[in-house]
């Protein structure tokens, strides 16, 4: 007999995603991912000035404001074939990298670690033993016995008052929780330290972006930061030095805590390398441009077919035809209608956003997300595709951190764990941490490049755009924390005629497409273990490994008090 489990909402902080699974004999047999809110923001943009689009699109989402700002200005610049000053590129790059690092740290520690780490078990730990273990893994200065004792007392205080606060919804004591009390305590201590450290990334974004949480410095044509080595009220040497200091502190945490913790937890949960493989067609885009046009990039991107690294096909410029021609979106199982028929898949330049809500139909329409495909195939996007494509392109820093992480996993697991283990639930966490270490290196490099260029006397940050008569089309893509983000704009005589955002979570959480092929979440959940259908922790592990953020994939809000889990017997 199979059991139907509905999880709604799925995410601990950003909501709006529903997942249904059919469980038989302790494993998932069929899965549906559904965006529960409508995204109609594209319709707001029609008829507006393309120079204003970035400020509006950064309001789409509560987590990834800056990424939409970047994709939007890039789309308009691409439509105009407008080159931007190299200083603007470096400043944007630093904002994107710092934002990405922030996002990855918060995702691992605050949004998903508690799927693997049992806070209540940490209370039973011996802080001395936990400290010795942590010190054997890393020389981070927050691994002392005194620090771990302090953390344990703090958590005891919380549990003692009967208020777990932010930890309320955890599956404490679940049979799938496997870590020793000491490892749990180490992870909880790092959870608290991560709260402290994430602020450095945020400060970098606010200084360079002129404001937080919504940046204000971006403009079509560059950035609005005036550069100067001495003058006040602009981006001065003093501010840039403060930024550098925060970069160094972040880097210490990323390399000596985050990367180590993920590898250690991965080693203890080595059986989770068997689950969550799903779609192994991987798409990522190159990012961190090193010229004004976007033809040279620090971090490579591309397409990998069927998990085979050697099949890597690179994407190499902002005008890359292979990428531009490959993307389309279907609505066969989505709550929209296409004027030319719902069996069609439309290129984003021709995209339509006309709602048609039906109700949740297992074999019909069941999601507010569209189904994006690349040359007709559903893709997985995100840190794993990014890291695999960088490895395939021979990117040395990626190779270095991936090797270090897999070596540590192998040591802890007591068996050789190779690259193939990355195609999995726990592998996505590992790839995110590896990618984050790469980003941290790159963040400091971009700072050096900016300073070196300013040293030559080049202070230019903006090229004024001009809008010709007639129609222009452009795409702006960005390798955002959750994967490929692309904005597609059609401009007519200086006014937006059409606008479509194809966001990472839409790629991953897509419903079945026009050929009835499942999206990445749906495919990755097949075969996933479920020990107790009343407490489907293992399903959450796999979905959370993608870092779901439906706030931008879909929209609007009228949510009443949803139960965390509803279970229905089928």
């Amino acid at each position, binding site marked *: 007999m199979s059991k139907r489990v509905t999880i709604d909402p799925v995410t*601990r*902080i*950003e*909501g709006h995603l529903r997942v249904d699974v059919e469980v038989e004999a302790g494993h998932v047999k069929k899965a549906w991912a559904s965006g529960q809110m409508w995204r*109609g*923001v594209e*319709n*707001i943009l029609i008829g507006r000035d393309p120079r204003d689009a970035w400020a*509006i699109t950064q*309001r*789409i*989402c*509560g*987590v990834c*404001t800056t990424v939409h700002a970047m994709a939007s200005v890039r789309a308009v610049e691409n439509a105009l074939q407008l080159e931007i000053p190299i200083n603007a590129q470096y400043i944007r790059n630093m904002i994107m990298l710092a934002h990405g690092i*922030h996002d990855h740290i*918060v995702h691992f520690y*605050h949004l998903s670690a508690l799927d693997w780490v049992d806070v209540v078990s940490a209370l039973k730990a011996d802080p001395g033993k936990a400290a010795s273990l942590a010190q054997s893994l890393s020389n981070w200065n927050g691994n002392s016995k005194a620090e771990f004792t302090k953390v344990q007392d*703090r958590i005891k205080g*919380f549990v003692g008052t009967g208020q777990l*606060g*932010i930890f309320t919804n955890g599956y404490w004591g679940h049979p799938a929780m496997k870590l020793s009390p000491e490892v749990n305590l180490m992870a909880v201590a790092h959870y*608290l330290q991560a*709260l*402290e450290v*994430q*602020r450095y990334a*945020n*400060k970098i*974004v606010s200084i360079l972006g002129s404001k*937080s*949480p*919504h940046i204000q410095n971006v403009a079509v044509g560059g950035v609005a930061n005036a550069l100067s080595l001495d003058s006040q009220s602009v981006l001065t040497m003093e501010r840039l030095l403060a930024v550098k200091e925060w970069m160094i502190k972040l880097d210490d945490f990323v390399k000596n805590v985050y990367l180590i913790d993920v590898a250690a937890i991965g080693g203890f949960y080595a059986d989770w390398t068997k689950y969550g493989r799903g779609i192994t067609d991987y798409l990522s885009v190159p990012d961190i441009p090193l010229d004004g046009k976007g033809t040279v990039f620090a971090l490579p991107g591309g397409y990998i077919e069927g998990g085979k690294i050697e099949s890597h096909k690179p994407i190499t410029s902002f005008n890359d035809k292979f990428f531009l021609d490959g993307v389309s979106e279907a609505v066969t199982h989505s709550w929209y209608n296409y004027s030319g028929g719902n069996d069609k898949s439309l290129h984003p330049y021709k995209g339509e956003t006309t709602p048609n809500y039906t109700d949740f139909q297992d074999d019909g329409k069941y999601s507010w997300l569209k189904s994006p495909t690349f040359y007709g195939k559903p893709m997985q996007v995100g840190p794993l595709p990014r890291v695999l494509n960088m490895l395939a392109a021979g990117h040395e820093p990626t190779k270095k951190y991936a090797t270090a992480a897999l070596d540590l996993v192998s040591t802890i697991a007591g068996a050789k764990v190779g690259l193939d283990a990355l195609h999995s639930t726990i592998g996505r966490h590992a790839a995110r941490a590896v990618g984050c270490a790469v980003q941290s290196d790159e963040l400091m490099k971009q700072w050096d490049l900016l300073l070196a260029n300013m040293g030559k006397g080049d202070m230019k940050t903006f090229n004024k755009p001009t809008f010709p008569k007639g129609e222009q089309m452009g795409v702006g893509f960005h390798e955002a924390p959750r994967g490929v983000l692309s904005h597609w704009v059609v401009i007519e005589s200086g006014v937006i005629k059409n606008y479509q955002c194809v966001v990472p979570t839409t790629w991953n959480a897509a419903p079945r497409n026009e050929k009835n092929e499942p999206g990445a979440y749906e495919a990755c959940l097949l075969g996933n273990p479920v020990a107790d259908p009343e407490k489907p922790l293992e399903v959450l592990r796999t979905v959370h490994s993608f870092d779901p953020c439906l*706030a931008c994939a879909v*929209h*609007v*809000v*009228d*949510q*009443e*008090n949803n139960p965390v889990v509803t279970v229905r017997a089928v």
Partner: protein
Amino acid sequence: MRIVVLGIGNILLSDEGVGVRVVEKLEAEYIVPPEVEIIDGGTCGMEMLDQLEDLDGLIVVDCVRHGQPPATPILLRGDQVPVFFKTKLSPHQISLSDVLASLELTDTAPKTTVIIGIQPASMSLGMELTPEVAARVPELLATTIAELKALGITVEARS
């Protein structure tokens, strides 16, 4: 003394963005002393952690569904604040409540929190407030200024 006036909401969804509109107006029309920070929080969450740490007072302005007719204002303080976060009256508390819970965990939560809210008339797609809610914005602004005053802060109208 550190005080934050935080407007939250999604300005793409008409009345949903009322909190942001009120703090924009506060910033445009008044000079506030340096110990007060005005934040347009949009729908953000953890990014605001740093700015909300160790506050003497937090004033949140938001759209709140409290079962009254459209455009009815509401003021929540003291014991009502945790209830507000528990019963999901506003769409953003998922993130804001987690930020506040994180601050509790690190012992850096605001000393006092008040929530100034208003029942939305519409949350459909659009960048303008409905006329009903727009008409109450001056009142919400006056309440915000009164709450600042209660914390010992006087603001000065820009000339």
